[in-house]
């Protein structure tokens, strides 16, 4: 039993109102005070320079309403402080064995309850300013649109502890709660330690090592070689042609704005990817990133509905890949590189890809995946399209294929834009087989695998019709077997007592 899991209602960090919106309020107060100072100076020097027009505060001073004005401001202040205080008092949360609950609001009460076995991920974000105050935002993602339970803000160590406790309760493990390590040192030392400390939870028994080192050079390179850059080059070329043809410089104005926007885009993506880390913990994959504002997300096992490894054509030469996943929840926090949080590896070489895939798809042979990525096709463990499919898949028919393992379906596509999609059978919602007139003439068919919505739509086209039919039945059966034996909603329930 730890301090959060006693089934009682708890409050958030006392600085919450301030961090959530109070800073703007303070700025307004400061602005008023600065103005008042002018008035005070004025009244002491008293040379009556006049000029009260357009200066409401001066006007107040000259007409003897100072007392009233001060009173109004004070009243306003008191109301605000009381309001903040009440809203803080009324904003409570609790964690039981089954649910995590949050109550908030003064006049309009909301009460939100998330089931622990439906947790899709836990995210701890530390925006720069709250981070200075040692506060963090904890978000529990539950399956569904806008179904997240947010706790903002908590003390930084409290957030880490709470995450550990929620994961422990959600995992269904019988292991007792671990002792809480009290941070040592003065407040300042703690702040500094938190600020420069590693993002990964330091209290875990075995410190998880990030399996990927994202070098700054690679990060820059991946940004420069992105599809956006091609677009940019095309734009600049187009404008150059436009200017030289018409001789008018009017084209340049949008370009300048475009360049400013571009610069921002690159900088955001770059800073968001700094200090990227991904590691396996007993409670799932943990992805962290960020330099000043940090974010750290835990995806428990079985929360990844499909995985896509892809390689844009420009990344072919350096041999870089990107990994995306489909998840059942939508988080308000964005992922590494400022992209959607479904991108779990913004850029990595084949070794990084292997390491990440081993984390997110523990049941699938990483060798098979790694060879599948770069294979030119042929006899490589995949059932590839027949030769007659080359009418539809000009370059990729040799590589266009699928494979069924014990726990997942693998789909491989593309010779120019190489791509591999893996769908864990236990997460598959349904399977579809389709064939139009053109495919029928070629004795081919297409397969689709339905998962929760996300950036990936797992499908494979132009495979042999009879093989596809057979595979359709096989996958449908395999999906049932896998999902009925799946225990990942309580992922550690099988563990023995610790």
């Amino acid at each position: 039993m730890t301090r959060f899991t006693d089934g009682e209602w708890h409050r958030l960090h006392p600085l919450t109102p301030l961090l959530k919106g109070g800073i703007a309020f303070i700025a307004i107060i400061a602005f008023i005070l600065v103005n008042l100072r002018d008035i005070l100076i004025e009244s002491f020097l008293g040379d009556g320079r006049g000029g009260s027009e357009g200066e409401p505060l001066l006007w107040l001073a000259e007409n003897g309403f100072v007392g009233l004005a001060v009173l109004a401001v004070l009243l306003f202040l008191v109301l605000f402080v009381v309001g903040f205080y009440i809203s803080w008092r009324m904003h409570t949360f609790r964690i039981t064995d089954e649910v995590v609950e949050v109550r908030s609001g003064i006049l309009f009460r909301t009460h939100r309850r998330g089931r622990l076995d439906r947790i899709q991920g836990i995210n701890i974000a530390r925006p720069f300013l709250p981070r200075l105050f040692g506060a963090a935002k904890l978000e529990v993602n539950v399956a569904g649109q806008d179904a997240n339970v947010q706790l903002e803000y908590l003390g930084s160590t409290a957030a880490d502890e709470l995450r550990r406790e929620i994961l422990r309760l959600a995992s269904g493990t019988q292991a007792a709660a671990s002792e809480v390590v009290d941070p040592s040192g003065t407040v300042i030392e703690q702040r500094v330690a938190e600020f420069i400390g590693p993002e990964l939870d330091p209290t875990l028994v075995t410190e998880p090592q990030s399996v990927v080192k994202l070098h700054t050079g690679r990060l820059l390179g991946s940004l420069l070689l992105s599809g956006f850059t091609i677009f940019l080059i095309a734009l600049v070329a187009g404008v150059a042609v436009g200017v030289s043809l018409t001789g008018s410089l009017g084209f340049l104005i949008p370009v300048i704005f475009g360049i400013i926007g571009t610069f921002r885009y690159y900088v955001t993506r770059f800073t968001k990817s700094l200090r990227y880390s991904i590691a396996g913990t007993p409670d799932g994959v943990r992805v962290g990133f960020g330099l000043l504002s940090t974010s750290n997300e835990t995806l428990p096992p079985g929360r990844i509905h499909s995985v896509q490894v892809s390689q844009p054509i420009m990344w072919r030469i350096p041999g870089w890949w990107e990994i995306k996943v489909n998840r059942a929840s939508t988080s308000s926090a964005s992922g590494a590189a400022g992209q959607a949080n479904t991108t779990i590896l913004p850029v990595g070489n084949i070794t990084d890809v292997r390491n990440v895939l081993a984390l997110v798809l523990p049941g699938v042979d990483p060798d098979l995946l790694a060879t599948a990525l770069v294979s030119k096709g042929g006899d490589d463990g995949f059932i590839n399209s027949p030769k007659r499919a080359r009418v539809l898949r000009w370059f990729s028919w040799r590589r266009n294929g699928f494979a069924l393992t014990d726990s997942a379906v693998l789909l491989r596509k593309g010779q120019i834009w190489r791509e591999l999609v893996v769908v864990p059978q236990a997460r598959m919602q349904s399977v579809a087989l389709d064939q139009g007139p053109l495919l029928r003439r070629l004795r081919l068919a297409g397969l689709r695998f339905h998962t929760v919505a996300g950036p990936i739509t797992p499908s494979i086209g132009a495979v042999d019709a009879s093989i596809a039919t057979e595979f359709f039945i096989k996958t449908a059966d395999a999906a049932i077997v896998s999902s009925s034996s799946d225990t990942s909603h309580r992922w550690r329930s099988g563990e023995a007592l610790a």
Partner: protein
Amino acid sequence: MTERLELPVAEWHRVSPKYVVVDVVGYIIFAAMILVPASLASFWIGFWWMWAITAALGVIFLITIVFTPRRVRSIGYALRDDDLLFRRGILFQRFVAIPYGRMQLVDINRGPLARALGLSELKFVTAAAASGVTIPGLPEQAAEELRDTLVSLAESRRAGL
């Protein structure tokens, strides 16, 4: 034309032949909504190619309507031990397998015409939007029985997401 896709399923349950009426009337209304304004516009403006487009659309609608009985016959479903199989389409064939444990809810819908003919439509929803399986043209009684069967099957095989 080579063979159609066929699955090793002993027997497909077919939908009621009365559903042809619902589908045909639906198409006729839709066709009228497109063709009448198109014809009027062609009549007033009078370019020959506008007539051509209208005529082409008319032919497409006519073919669609003529093939409706065949298309309705192609709709079928089969209840296997652990999943529901669904098929439809003749030119564009589609088969879907939904495990019972994946069904999040089952809807029964009735349009005005279908209700007059005593037909209902069953719709299955899973966590994936793309699953989208709707069995039209079931007799009311059968639809309700099927829904109850499916809901109890889904309950006994409940899986997470």
